[in-house]
């Protein structure tokens, strides 16, 4: 390829020299050449690369007017046609991190390679990690030089149309994509080596990435059940008989909320299970096995439970990505809260 590598750099209002929080509302503007951290970036990139232009956008503008910001960034990229877009580094700044991820997505959508850098816990990294290249940095600007030194060689290669190797070798954060490649030695040999290392107390690294489950603080206890409003949720795939709501039996992208205000129990004539992960016939003879309405009504009558919430929530909890499940959970929890529910029973099959 001929000519120097042409880079467009995305920064926020602060790094773009416009101002601090008081200027976070400013829209997208463009400066010729490198600005602020762009000069450090240019040095890190070496001789045959230059920052052609710098896109500057206020963090609030980017987060509050995402579509407008994306459109403006896209228009500038269409005009400038860089070899690669570099965004940030955003370090620990959440809105900036999200804006950098947005800029990268806009570029990639146009076939322009893009890369950014931020702290691994930046929401921009956790929300948008899939599909974009993010180099991990420290939480503050003191790691600017290190961040750009790590980012620059990757940006160069992306700009030259090269594909990067796996994240663990290249140093960017995992993007959630898998590619077939040859590790050189068969799995049984690698596994035995790993086992030997483990038995001898030597360091070893699993080839299966482990993402520890999220820790949720336990809800405080209910003081008095006899005054509490209790709701029921099931991941057992409960549907109305004949599945008129067209729920799927696995990998649910939505859950259903049904009213049980008028019901004493769940009748097999009106309810059934539609779930690809277990034998449904037993539940079809008694749906209360996965959503214990009959029991709760008895307890409500006896005064042991204050009130049975009028809505139930149901979906099939099988073959669903954790991120999607977490979204369902957040949404159900928000609805329960809005309904002034004190406690919920979740039955999982």
């Amino acid at each position: 390829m001929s000519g120097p590598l042409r880079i467009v750099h995305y920064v926020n209002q602060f790094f773009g020299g416009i101002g601090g929080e008081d200027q976070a509302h400013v829209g997208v503007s463009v400066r010729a050449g490198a600005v602020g951290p762009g000069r450090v970036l240019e040095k890190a990139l070496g001789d045959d690369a230059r920052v052609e232009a710098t896109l500057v956008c206020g963090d609030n503008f980017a987060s509050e007017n995402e579509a407008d910001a994306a459109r403006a960034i896209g228009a500038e990229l269409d005009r400038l046609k860089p070899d690669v877009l570099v965004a940030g580094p955003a370090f620990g700044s959440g809105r900036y991190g999200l804006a950098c991820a947005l800029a990268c997505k806009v570029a990639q959508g146009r076939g322009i390679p893009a890369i950014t850098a931020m702290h691994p816990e930046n929401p921009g990294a956790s929300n948008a990690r899939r599909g974009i290249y993010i180099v991990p940095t420290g939480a503050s600007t003191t790691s600017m030089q290190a961040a750009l030194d790590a980012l620059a060689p990757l940006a160069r290669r992306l700009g030259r149309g090269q594909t990067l190797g796996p994240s663990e070798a290249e140093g960017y954060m995992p993007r959630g994509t898998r590619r077939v490649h040859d590790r050189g030695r068969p799995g049984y040999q690698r596994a035995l080596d790993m086992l030997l290392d483990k038995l001898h107390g030597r360091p070893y690294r699993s080839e299966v990435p482990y993402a520890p489950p999220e820790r949720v603080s336990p809800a405080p206890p209910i003081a008095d059940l006899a005054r509490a409003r209790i709701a029921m949720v099931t991941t057992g795939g409960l549907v109305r008989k004949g599945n008129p709501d067209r729920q799927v039996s696995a990998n649910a992208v939505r859950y259903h909320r049904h009213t049980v205000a008028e019901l004493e129990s769940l009748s097999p004539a009106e309810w059934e299970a539609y779930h690809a992960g277990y034998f449904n016939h037993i539940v079809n003879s008694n749906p209360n096995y996965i959503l214990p309405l009959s029991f709760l009504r008895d307890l409500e009558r006896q005064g042991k439970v204050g009130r049975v919430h009028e809505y139930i929530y149901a979906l099939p909890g099988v073959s669903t990505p954790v991120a999607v499940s977490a979204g369902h959970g957040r949404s159900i929890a928000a609805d329960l809260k809005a309904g002034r529910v004190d406690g919920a029973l979740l039955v999982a099959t």
Partner: protein
Amino acid sequence: MISAIYNFALTTGANRVIRGARIEHVCGDPTLSAEKDYAFGMRIVTTALQTLTIAVPGPTLFDPMASGKEAAHAS
């Protein structure tokens, strides 16, 4: 959370976990007589409701069948 695969629930971070009967019939047992089935299910549900009144430090298992015993912690 009431689940027959309670170890899953504990290791993935559910804080109040109640041991259910079986995957196919979490709150009851159709092999029992109707009366005993109902009593069994009621015991599971009542245990679950009681856990809502207890403070837990983290993932904790409650076994409706282990009457009088202390709750077992996940770790």
